[in-house]
């Protein structure tokens, strides 16, 4: 409880003792944004942990990361922004290549195929290439503990704004149309395959960017940071927050990242209560915290509640005329 009181009433004192958590919340927000891009266009992809790894490993290797037997890439010391850019571009290229065959799939098949990509990357490449430090991980001597936090939150704000603006453009409308009914969208002349690919590649780039930022908060990256659990976490954030608006998954990520710390006072029951809260959200808010209801425009939680209550009120309904 002290945690919440402090966060609400003494935010600066709170920040002083919780910078790392603040950084992690930002990174998780970016990851949630990355999966939102594909979910918004109606694709259940779980490849983002893999793209995150691509961003993280490239940025650490290129800025002078070391394996247990010496520098990962001898003589390479690029500045962080350049290394991150390369990581993001690499993720985009990989997304394009695997997207071509994989994006033909739909629903749960797409989820399995993309999950497979993440695990194949981990077991096939990361654990077998010397440059990644294999199972021993990669040391990142250039990590910064606190100076990376502002850039993370700044980029989250900018990217969230851009994503929000994107939903109002032709691309955004195309994504929404594909999500609601792919066949109908195609019948309207929307190039379904292209728009899906755009969402997939953009999501991959944001995930790689988040991975690179997150990696530089840590002095060691390890393949276990990018497992399918990480992919599932992103999905949970998006489901809890709701995918109708870009703010949904971001709020979901921030809330669920901070929740274990908020619940710390419950001690042994922490995990149980954490789980119960998750189940409660999914039961009572199946479309997430931020939802749009047809006919109410840009409505959120409260509007929807009010509409539901009004509909259920019998006296408001027109009484049938007596025969």
């Amino acid at each position, binding site marked *: 409880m002290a945690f919440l009181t402090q966060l609400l009433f003494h935010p600066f004192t709170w920040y*002083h003792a919780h910078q790392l958590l603040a950084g*992690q919340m930002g990174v998780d927000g970016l990851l949630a944004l990355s999966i939102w891009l594909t979910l918004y266009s109606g694709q259940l992809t779980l490849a983002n942990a893999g793209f995150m790894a691509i961003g993280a490993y490239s940025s650490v290797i290129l800025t002078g990361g070391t394996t247990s037997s010496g520098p990962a890439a001898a003589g390479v010391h690029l500045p962080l922004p350049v290394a991150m850019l390369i990581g993001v571009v690499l993720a985009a290229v990989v997304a394009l290549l695997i997207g071509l065959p994989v994006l033909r799939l739909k629903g749960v098949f797409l989820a399995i195929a993309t999950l497979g990509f993440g695990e194949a990357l981990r077991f096939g490449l990361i654990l077998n290439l010397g440059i990644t430090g294999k199972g021993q991980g990669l040391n990142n001597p250039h990590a910064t503990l606190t100076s990376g936090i502002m850039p993370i939150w700044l980029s989250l704000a900018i990217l969230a704004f851009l994503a929000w603006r994107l939903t109002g453009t032709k691309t955004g409308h195309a994504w929404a149309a594909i999500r609601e009914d792919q066949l109908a969208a195609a019948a309207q002349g929307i190039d379904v395959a292209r728009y899906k690919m755009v969402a997939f590649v953009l999501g991959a780039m944001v995930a790689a960017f988040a991975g690179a930022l997150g990696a530089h908060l840590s002095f*060691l990256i390890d393949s276990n940071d990018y497992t399918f659990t990480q992919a599932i976490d992103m999905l949970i954030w998006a489901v809890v927050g709701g995918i109708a608006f870009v703010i949904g998954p971001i709020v979901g990520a921030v809330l669920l990242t901070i929740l274990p710390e908020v619940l710390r006072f419950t001690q042994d029951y*922490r995990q149980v209560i954490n789980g119960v809260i998750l189940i409660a959200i999914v039961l009572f808010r199946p479309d997430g915290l931020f939802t749009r209801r047809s006919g109410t425009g840009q409505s959120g939680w409260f509007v929807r509640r009010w509409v539901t209550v009004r509909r259920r009120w019998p006296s408001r309904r027109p009484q049938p005329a007596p025969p």
Partner: protein
Amino acid sequence: MRTTSRIRWWGTAGVAVALFASACGSSSGTASSKGKTLKLGAVFSLTGAGGVYGPQQQQAVKLAEETINAGGGVNGANLSIQVVDDASTQTQAAQQTQTLIQQNQVVALLGPTLSNSAVAAHPIADSLKTPMLAVSTTGLNIVGTCPYPCTYIFRDSLGEAAAIPTNIKTYVAAASPKPKTGVLLYPNDDKFSVDGATAVKQTVTDPAVGIQLLDTIQFSKSDADLTQFVNQGVAKHPDVIFITSLGGIPAKIMTAARQQGFTGQFLGGNGFNSAAVSKQAGNFGKGARSASAWYLGNDFASNAEFVKAFKAKYGTDPDQFAAQAYTGVLILADAAKRAKLTYTDLAGDRQKLRTAMESTNIQTPLGPFQFTSTHDVHQTIWVIAMDGQGGFSLVTSVKPS
């Protein structure tokens, strides 16, 4: 004869007087810290993947806290250790380390439980100039050559890089006929196991050992069935099977290998040193050897008392993790006693404690304990073998060089 005994009598009396005087001296020192509280923190994995180790560590730390406070505290100051759970995640370990240091104002910390969390938490403690003592991390680069500054980081847990070579070398030295061939099995997606495997590969090429590795078999820690990997290894007819892994994996490999007719020796690392592993392997694991930081049956006073107190309080035997965590508290309390803490200048106290820790030389459940110049373990290594009934027997011990 009579004169010598008289001299001895006077000598003893003199020592007694000196001891009494020094006791009076320290009791006046006690008065100076009375009413103060020495605040320490511990970041352990009470839940999640490390949840099989963290709870014993917590129990041992609480026992040590009680024992020290019952014995008059640290120069009279009350010892208070706050144990927090990192849920086996890097993020929470790092965050809790920061919170304990900056908000709860602890003088020093123990933990974290897992190496993976340590690389996230230790840089924080170091950057905030607070001593942090690792009590269970056995991986490479935890102390000494770290990828980040680690001048405030210590560890009292015997590293795999010391345990595995000691185990292999003592086995080869005593074995007859000498083992010539070996097979190494380990999961390649787990840092602890890969670090251990690296140590095995380096040790077997040592001329004093001279074991040829016929095969190195890698698998994933999430593989449910290891039979095919074990078959592949047993088919090479090695003299020794090396296993560097944790949890249920060593027992699974031993069981499968014995069922396939393997009659040679199992050698491993810290992953063997748990009663749970020995129980699970049962008779198939009999004779499997590892080097340990601690042995339950050691009857020197500092261990016997610890084992007795632990059993009385919790009803079960302690394990290596408990012994190392208990030792961690003893080390911090001893250093705090010698450091002349002010209890007002926190930054200064942390600095003093760090300096005092470097000259640690105490009796612990692990045996006589000191730190090396790189803040690593300097202790006797106990080579133990599984007894086939869920326990261990002592094979030999190796004094530190």
